[in-house]
């Protein structure tokens, strides 16, 4: 690991009532990494992700970006520098696609952005430029999430947080969009943290896979190491699912 990690968790804990969702996690993430957070529902992976952009405030510990505590400045300012994509997308239904994307620079006080820039962002997520004048209700689920990603990139952020971004999409759309995100990660030099419950997706897209169970990280491996049998029981149970499916498909052929 580098001397100053790009993103660091320092003894972070978060409790919801009797449940310890995040249990004293310390973790460093290097610049340019594509990290997948994998685990069953309720394992605390979304909660951990949201402590970064302060949609969840930890009860104890700190989260540092480039060595600076995210709690040291107002939450909106922190969030404007971080791209955030989640399963629900949350497009503003009373605004056009273009206005949804333009909202990010607008609220940061950067004023209106050029139509050209909105076009570029739509290019990035492989949407036709004329979609900018349409309203979200006229789009398919996959198109909406592409707009959500374009909006997340509109603030020129270098950190992209994704919470089950493809969870509501059909398998074909899901695979295509996953590849596109992986490509964008490379093109734009992003650091990406993606929460998913799908181990296959994690293995295909990420270069580092963290497995969470009951608020703790129980495995921290590369996809290759996981496929080679590393990471322990919980991680291997998750890896077994897609491996088993692949074997059965192979046998069927």
């Amino acid at each position, binding site marked *: 690991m580098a001397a100053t990690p790009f993103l660091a968790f320092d003894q972070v804990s978060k409790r919801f009532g009797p449940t310890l969702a995040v249990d004293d996690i310390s973790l460093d993430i290097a610049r340019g990494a594509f990290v997948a957070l994998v685990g069953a529902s309720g394992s605390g992976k979304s909660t951990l992700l949201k402590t970064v952009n302060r*949609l969840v405030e930890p009860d104890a510990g700190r989260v540092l970006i480039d060595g600076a505590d995210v709690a040291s400045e107002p939450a909106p300012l922190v969030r404007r520098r971080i791209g955030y994509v989640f399963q629900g997308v*949350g*497009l*503003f239904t009373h605004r056009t696609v273009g206005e949804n994307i333009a909202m990010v620079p607008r*609220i940061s006080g950067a004023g209106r952005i050029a139509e050209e820039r909105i076009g570029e962002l739509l290019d990035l997520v492989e949407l036709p430029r004329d979609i900018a004048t349409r*309203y979200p209700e006229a789009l398919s689920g996959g198109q909406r999430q592409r707009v959500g990603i374009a909006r997340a990139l509109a*603030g020129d952020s270098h950190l992209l947080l994704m919470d089950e971004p493809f969870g509501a999409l059909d398998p074909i759309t899901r695979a295509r969009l996953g590849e596109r995100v992986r490509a964008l990660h490379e093109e734009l030099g992003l650091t990406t943290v993606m929460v998913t419950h799908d181990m296959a997706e994690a293995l295909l897209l990420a270069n580092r896979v963290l497995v969470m169970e009951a608020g703790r990280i129980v495995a921290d491996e590369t996809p290759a190491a996981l496929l080679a049998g590393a990471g322990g029981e919980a991680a291997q149970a998750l890896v077994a699912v897609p491996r088993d499916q692949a074997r059965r498909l192979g046998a069927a052929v």
Partner: protein
Amino acid sequence: MSDLLAALLGLGPQLADHILLSAAAVALGLGLALPLALWAARSRNVAGVALGFASLVQTIPALALLALFFPILLAARAVFGEGLPTLGFLPAWLALGLYALLPILRNAVTALTHVDAEALEAADGIGMTRWQRLRHVEAPLAAPYVMAGIRTASVWTIGAATLATTIGQRSLGDPIFAGLQTQNWALVLAGCIASASLALVADGLLGLVERGIASRRPMLAWIGAVLALAGLGAAAFAVAQPGSAASREVVKIGAKPFSEQYILAHAIGIMLEDAGYRVEYRDGLGSAVVHEAVTSSAIDISVDYTGTLWTNELGESGNPGREAMFDEIVNWEQRTSGTKVLGRLGFENAYGLAMEREKATFGLFNSIADVAERGQSMTIGGDPEWFERPEWQAVREAYGLRFANQRTFAPTFMYNALKSGEADVISAYTSDGRIAADDLVFLADPLEALPSYDAILLVSPRLADDPELAAALKPLIGAIDVQTMREANLMVDRDEDKRSVDEAARWLLDEIGAQPASTR
């Protein structure tokens, strides 16, 4: 039909005032509801209290709510000084504003607490501040629902504003109340048609705005808004016309809600117009409100009755006799407010207990004492006011009156109740035209429990020292005997060959030889 058309065409000023009052009330409701809704959307407790309060207000009958603001404002004078108006626009505006609160508040709170959770997460996620989230996400998403609330509130308010008439605010309720009292159905219908049409038009225009917002067609919203504002502007323009701008010069004549008061108010108006004054009528004021109105110069002239003032205003309970009571009232009015009692009109409109002649003769009921002794199985009917009046207490105690039943009727229907046997004895007015028409007799009052009720003319402090006004009204003083008044009342109240209030007033003036020079 032509009556109805004429009545409708004469409603211009009422319509203009009605529009302005309703719009101001909805604006007040909106001004209260929006900040409350924002607060309530963030706190369950505030939401509970605010919605509870608004619902409570809604359960108060609009008529009572309007009337309640009279004593409230009277009490508020301790803080804001004597200049605070207790009648007219202010209380009507406050009461209707509270009435408009609920639909707006409920829709706004519901809309704000049900804004799509994912849109809110996205708003936070891209770094909106709370204010930005409100402005860019919550407010626009809630706007169509808030607009729907404003629309509902507007329709309610336009309907309820007709009741503003009872507290001295000109509105489309004027023809409704006057028509109901004199059973002039063309007037009632005209008032109803006008206010219902106004409600429909407002609903339609605000509906355009609502649909424009909801379906993101700004043109539609603008068309609705511009047309609604144009209507408001026209109403404001009409009210601000030089005609009513010089309202200081206008003499306002008040009337309690019954035919005799309307006739006398119009007779006074005719005399004053002939003398060069411009007059405005404040018909249908609640009778508790009239005295306060004239002594505070909210209106300028009223006809009241000595017995009423004696018990209600002076707070006296004894009966000093007719002359002493009058003298005392003249002094008291002069002393306490500077209101001038111009004189007695000549007749009494006393409260008495009346029965059908046949029933009275058959049962040998000649005096109240007879009824007290042998009439315990009978039913007494009275107008809504009667059973709350000290006169009723007094007469009941003096004779030890007891009845099997006690029923309340609108004054107009009280006589029908006597005819149909729903009541055996009623509290009647001695000057009522139906006394002779229905062949009723008054029960004698040997104990003099009921005070005298001389009709007297009161002039507000503002015009108390106007000698020309006093001179113009002098022909009315001491000139109207009870037979003449009964006959004039009957003209308006009867079902056949019904006359308008104005015709009855002119007949009355003619009868007493006081008709104005112009028609002589």
